[in-house]
């Protein structure tokens, strides 16, 4: 019972803390697993589980509202089970990915069916300038969202590793695989949400340029960010120059060249 409680707490601190503290990354396995280990009295095992899972879930990011998997649940449970099995980390590794994929689906359900319906209240409170109402709702939604989620590790630890394993085993392999496939595709939804905010026919071509660079040059994102920034700056400089030409077609500000009068606007564009 204590074990179940503290693992649930560790997971809650992870997922809820991540959002409360400004995308603080508390929900990453490298944080959740040692925390669970600490509370369970074996921090070393927690560290090892955390390191292993952090590597396994390195590619799992959280963009828009879609993700590949939810790793903190897996981190908490894996720590608990590994400690029970005398610190043997290797035996729990095979179940962490299925767990994380399943965790994500459950998280999505809470998000959609619990948080979704509550959100309309924000508008009604706002209309009445009911600031207390907004604040309470804001934090209540936060609590209920992640507290519900924390029930999963609570019961999972309570019933024990065997039950969890048998539950996982009872999910047909083809379904489990399907969830993994879906998990790998889910970031597409995040991309689509970003696209919806960014897209415009006239500049859509740049989306493809980012894709082709990544697909065929396989650069780290930071290199693409630098290249993208260079492109954006060069384009903005030309736009600025044209803007000026148009508003003051007499002036001699053409060459975007080496030495022209730096007025305030240029200053802004650095």
């Amino acid at each position, binding site marked *: 019972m204590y074990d179940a409680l503290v693992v649930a707490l560790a997971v809650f601190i992870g997922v809820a803390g991540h959002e409360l503290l400004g995308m603080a990354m508390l929900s990453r396995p490298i944080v959740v697993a040692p925390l669970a280990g600490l509370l369970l009295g074996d921090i070393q095992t927690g560290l090892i589980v955390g390191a292993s899972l952090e590597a396994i879930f390195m590619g799992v990011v959280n963009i828009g509202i879609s993700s590949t998997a939810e790793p903190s649940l897996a981190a908490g449970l894996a720590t608990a089970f590994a400690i029970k099995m005398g610190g043997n980390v290797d035996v729990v590794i095979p179940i962490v990915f299925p767990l994380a994929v399943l965790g994500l689906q459950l998280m999505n359900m809470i998000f959609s069916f619990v948080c979704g319906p509550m959100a309309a209240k924000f508008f009604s409170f706002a209309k009445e300038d009911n600031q207390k109402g907004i604040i309470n709702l804001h934090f209540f939604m936060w609590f209920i969202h992640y507290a519900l989620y924390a029930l999963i590790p609570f019961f999972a630890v309570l019933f024990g590793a065997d039950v969890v394993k048998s539950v996982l085993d009872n999910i047909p392999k083809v379904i489990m695989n399907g969830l993994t496939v879906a998990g790998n595709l889910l970031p597409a939804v995040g991309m689509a949400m970003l696209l919806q905010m960014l897209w415009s026919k006239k*500049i859509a071509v740049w*989306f493809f340029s980012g*894709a082709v660079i*990544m697909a065929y040059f396989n650069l780290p994102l930071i290199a693409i960010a630098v290249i993208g920034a260079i492109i*954006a700056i060069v384009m903005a400089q030309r736009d600025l120059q044209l803007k000026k030409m148009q508003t003051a077609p007499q002036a001699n500000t053409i060459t975007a060249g080496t030495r022209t009068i730096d007025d305030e606007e240029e200053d802004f*564009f650095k």
Partner: protein
Amino acid sequence: MKLGQQISKEEKKLVRKMFWRSMTMYASVNPVTMGGGGFAYSMMPFINHFYKDKNDRAAALERHSQYFSTTIPFASFIMGTAASMEKENSKKPGFDVESINAIKTSLMGPLAGIGDSLFWGVWRVVCAGLAINLAHAGNILAPIIFLIMFNVPNYLVRYYGGILGYSLGSKYIQKLYANGLIEILTKAASVLGLIMVGAMTISMVKFDTILSFSMDGKEILNVQKILDSIFKGIVPLLISLGCFKLLQKKVGVIKIIFGMVILGIVLSLLRIA
């Protein structure tokens, strides 16, 4: 221009309050308003300071409860900008209130694209790489170093972003908007954002079909190879664009997500993936 020099002490205090509140922006994340609740919560100090009339406050709160989504470290920059516009609005009678949410929505996309890739794609990976090594060596400071290393730039960007947004807002944004320069800025940021999202589409959305045809034990057709020779990452690209089309047709995000889960299971059942 030194950051924030033309902001009064009192205003700085307001910005600082917003900074702390913005931390929780996604606490009430939900499929309808995303961070809208948190945005309104973060704007309250300003709203209460600028508007004395209850109706004005209600109007402002309603404005800022709307759908909003961007990456947390850049959120306060937009809040600061919006706050400076609320200030204008509270003073000038003829102010175009619509422009406040127009700016918010035009900035949130580009900044999300840029910020997500930098903070999730680059910086988190660097920090985690280091922390994994520490943890493997049994160092109990691993999680703490990880959190500090990641969050120092995270918080600094959010802190100074707020100040920058508010001071730029009061000095520039209005003007830029008026003479059309904001379009240039937005376009540039969007271009960068689109490039990053394009790159992330390839690197984060994963799909490999296991479909292949054999004859007499020899593989004669590896579908993934064909797909790769047409265009590497063509499936992630098409799926992302498909989701985007659905979103544009007002299909809800939640529906799309569950559709994707079903798609995954179907593909698995058909032994395609």
